[in-house]
């Protein structure tokens, strides 16, 4: 029987690993390559790496990281893929199929597209035709408004699109996406748990696997994402500063009856 996947999400900013709060506060936490070796040793199910570097906010106060453009990020990807014997999804700053090709040739199994997929949805289809649907993850960042309505945002949460996340996810599937990664701008880094209404709406609107993300502060919250229809549960911050974050996450899921790979 298929296991529910538990996935760490690593955020890369200007060549360094960071943790994130509400898509706007980023704290440097370490080396992007060592962290992957650790996860590989832990036997984690899969890994999602998102490059959230913004070209316009390069941190000039630091000179120990000279990583700025996609080319430099690809060096990190190549180093990462050498020790990563699990599926690796790489996302961030993908503009066209040439970017996708560079990332897949660099050792990633899947690419995650977000802003550019909203701007030019044909990119999803082009990518699926070239690399297969299984290689195209469409990442959907949503914000919950005060009236409870959700809206898709792009550009790292800075640009509103007017799109409904469930409707957009359904269109992404129709255009050839193989998985949907759902992130919540207002839950990111808060530890309050997933935005379950958002996860449920996207899962109900699609037939492809949905990966829940954003808001995990306690291992016990993972199961809520599974109950809301997610095929895989992901988180970022809870994986840092802690040993056994894979083991404890898996155990919490298993205790609530979710079939995981222990």
């Amino acid at each position: 029987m298929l296991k529910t996947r538990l996935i760490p999400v690593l955020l890369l900013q200007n060549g360094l690993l960071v943790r994130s709060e509400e898509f706007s506060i980023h704290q440097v936490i370490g080396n992007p390559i060592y962290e992957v070796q650790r996860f590989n040793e832990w036997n984690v199910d899969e890994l999602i790496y998102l490059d959230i570097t913004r070209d316009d906010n390069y941190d000039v106060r630091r000179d120990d990281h000279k990583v700025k453009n996609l080319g430099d990020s690809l060096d990190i990807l190549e180093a990462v893929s050498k020790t990563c014997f699990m599926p690796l999804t790489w996302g961030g700053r993908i503009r066209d199929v040439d970017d996708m090709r560079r990332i897949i040739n660099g050792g990633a199994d899947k690419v995650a597209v977000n802003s550019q997929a909203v701007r030019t949805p044909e990119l999803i289809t082009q990518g699926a035709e070239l690399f297969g649907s299984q290689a195209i993850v469409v990442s959907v960042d949503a914000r919950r408004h005060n009236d409870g309505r959700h809206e898709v945002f792009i550009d790292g949460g800075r640009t509103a699109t007017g799109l409904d996340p469930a409707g957009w996810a359904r269109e992404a599937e129709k255009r050839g996406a193989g998985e949907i990664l759902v992130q919540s701008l207002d839950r990111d880094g808060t530890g309050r748990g997933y935005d379950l209404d958002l996860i449920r709406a996207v899962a109900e609107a699609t037939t492809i696997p949905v990966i829940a993300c954003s808001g995990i502060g306690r291992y016990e919250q993972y199961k809520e994402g599974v109950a809301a229809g997610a095929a895989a549960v992901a988180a970022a911050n809870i994986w840092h500063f802690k040993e056994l974050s894979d083991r404890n996450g898996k155990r919490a899921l298993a205790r609530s009856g979710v079939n995981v790979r222990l």
Partner: protein
Amino acid sequence: MKLAIIDYGMGNLRSVANAVEAVGGLATIVSEPARLREAERIILPGVGAFGRGMQNLRSGGWIEVLEEEVLGKRKPLAGFCLGMQLLADVGFEHGRHDGLGWIRGSVRRLETGDPALRVPHIGWNDTRLAKKDRLYRGLADSETFYFVHSFVFEPEDAAVVSGTADHGVRFVASVEAGNIVATQFHPEKSQRAGLMVIKNFLALEP
């Protein structure tokens, strides 16, 4: 050349090469069919659509050389994921396409019969290992491997099946027929158990 990984434009070859190297092998990614003649063994990896995979093998001039080296000289060949499906006579992904026809059977859409069991079938699944003397030497009776696919290989001869898994229905996870072995899952992405499969392939006698 110890081992050739066929580059026919279908997916991530780097991870296959990395995995071969991690278990002490030496892999060369080749994009010229003639180079297969130097190889001792061959991996046909691949993700993507059946029709395009066959078209790329055909237009790249791979098929004739592969037939000489694998069917003629009986060099060990491992197919991974799409590389397993292409061994079939025919595939039904986006229309009907002829396959290599090396192992009798067809490739059809995975019908789980349950909307909660989503397709593509993505993730780690328990795989029952029916033959443990070659590809699965040293592994338990059931191991978890990483799958990513929407189509499954249905061989005519049940005797070639060496592993099965369930996703609503039971499907074929691997086949072994003489010097030709293949897995629907991705051994290069299946951590310890997957690396063991690759290590066993490096030692496989035809």
